[in-house]
């Protein structure tokens, strides 16, 4: 979605009052709010969600990674990442943006992007760039060196996030193909999921995996973060309508339904398999539901969302078991099975439930379920392939500069003390 589809949506939904080139203060008000909500998803939402899941001796390392990513991605964004994602790339425009907006050149208090100030579009999109990079943390948690993490995040943001974002929302080739990704199934969740998986494989498992249980040190923190993610996601998906209108409202409603259905789907699986549902299961299913509804959230109706959410709960439940148990990959906090698989599932199911007959907004001219599915598959595979390749190369390069992992001794001692000279809890 975003800018690329804005015009279409505007034609369909926006009331006659606003036209694309005057400021609409109501849209602005909602985008201001949405930006706050999406930042809230990362800080403190995701930070706490992840922080609770790791061991007591690594809680700060995860919080630190999330905050540091917020800081450095902001720098990158202002300097060049926004430009690479959203400005015109000239001859390369199918693949990546240009340098025209580097250092936010030409952006003034009066610049508009659609009906809202360009500054809020910049800030809103920046919060997406932040959370995407922060999601990856779950893949290499509890063992990556901090300096390697910083370097990795810089390169990944420039080489993976910026181009993929441009493909889909910046006017690149996927936008041209009619690829549907309302709020980031591919741009956010699939890229983060694949990157986390590759990172987990390149770094290798945590010492003790898979024999040693590694229980979350504080589920209340995780559940607190989960609640914040849910609430913040209203801005993530609802804000992606870029207007305070029926499209935003419907996006919010289906987001909420998707989250609930994901939670209930996962809960049902646990209840059936183990006789007891767990709170970690419920919140994981909720996040899976949210990640899955994300690409579809501007295109489907509430009943579609219910089905998509339930599917997310069940599929991501199995995906988690397969990655951890069958493939024995230590994607520590299950980023790939939840976000990568969820995002992919959502991209595909979106092509089904966008159908007007199934309560969706209907296909674009000349598109049908089959052709849309084809486009979605192409976008999905291209995103996954590029992310996997680039992530792997980046890690290898970073590994040449500085070791990726801490020593076993430091891992046992914990990253908090050895990387940051701090402990999470004292007297």
């Amino acid at each position, binding site marked *: 979605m975003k800018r690329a589809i804005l015009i279409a949506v505007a034609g369909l939904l926006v009331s006659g009052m606003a036209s694309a080139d005057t400021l609409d203060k109501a849209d602005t008000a909602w985008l201001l709010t949405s930006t706050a909500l999406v930042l809230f998803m990362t800080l403190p939402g995701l930070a706490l969600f992840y922080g609770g899941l790791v061991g007591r001796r690594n809680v700060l390392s995860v919080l630190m990674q999330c905050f540091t990513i917020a800081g450095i991605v902001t720098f990158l964004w202002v300097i060049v990442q926004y430009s690479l994602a959203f400005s015109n790339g000239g001859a390369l425009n199918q693949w990546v943006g240009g340098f025209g907006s580097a250092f936010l050149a030409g952006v003034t208090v009066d610049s508009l992007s659609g009906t809202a100030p360009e500054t809020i579009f910049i800030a809103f999109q920046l919060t997406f760039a932040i959370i995407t990079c922060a999601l990856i943390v779950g893949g290499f948690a509890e063992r990556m060196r901090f300096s390697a993490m910083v370097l990795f995040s810089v390169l990944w943001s420039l080489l993976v996030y910026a181009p993929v974002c441009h493909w889909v929302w910046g006017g690149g080739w996927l936008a041209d193909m009619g690829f549907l990704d309302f709020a980031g199934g591919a741009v956010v969740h699939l890229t983060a999921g694949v990157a986390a998986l590759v990172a987990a494989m390149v770094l290798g498992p945590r010492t003790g995996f898979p024999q040693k*249980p590694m*229980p*979350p040190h504080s589920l209340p923190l995780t559940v607190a973060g989960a609640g914040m993610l849910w609430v913040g996601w209203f801005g993530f998906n609802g804000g992606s309508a870029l207007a305070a209108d029926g499209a935003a409202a419907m996006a919010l409603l289906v987001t909420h339904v998707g989250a609930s259905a994901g939670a209930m789907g*996962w809960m049902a*699986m*646990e209840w059936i*398999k*183990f006789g*007891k549902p*767990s709170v*970690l*299961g419920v919140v*994981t299913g909720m996040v899976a539901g949210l990640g899955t509804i994300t690409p579809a959230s501007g295109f489907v109706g509430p009943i579609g969302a219910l089905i998509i959410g339930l599917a997310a709960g069940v599929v991501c*439940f199995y995906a*988690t*078991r397969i990655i*951890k*148990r069958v493939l024995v990959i230590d994607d520590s906090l*299950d980023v790939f099975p939840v976000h990568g698989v969820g995002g992919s599932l959502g991209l595909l199911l979106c092509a089904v439930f966008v159908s007007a007959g199934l309560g969706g907004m209907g296909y674009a001219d000349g598109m049908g379920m089959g052709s849309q599915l084809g486009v979605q598959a192409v976008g999905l595979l291209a995103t996954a392939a590029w992310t996997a390749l680039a992530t792997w190369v980046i890690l290898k390069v970073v590994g040449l500069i500085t070791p990726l992992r801490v020593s076993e001794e430091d891992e046992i001692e914990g990253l908090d003390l050895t990387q940051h000279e701090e402990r999470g809890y004292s007297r």
Partner: protein
Amino acid sequence: MKLVMAIIKPFRLDHVRNTLSDLGINGMTVSEVQGFGRQRGHTELYRGAEYMVDFIPKTKVEVACTDELAERVVEAIMDSGKTGKVGDGKVFVLDLEEAYRVRTGESGDSAL
């Protein structure tokens, strides 16, 4: 003097304490410990997989008492700590060479 050290189930602590008070014991020191033993641990769920946790929260009670009282202290703990199920715990008796009260400097039985 003896030092009686008992490992019991946490929720029996109140009962044990009351029984000891009845005996005239007016001091004890309690701490949280983890026990391994015949009693099986429990399974825990973690994102669609179960794993085994084999330590069990227990409470350690330490009571210093006179030689005369020692036997009755042991009995009292055995009675009040008992549920009859595996994992009820142990009572250990050690010889206590000397005891002092920090506040007064008293030593021996009167320090207890």
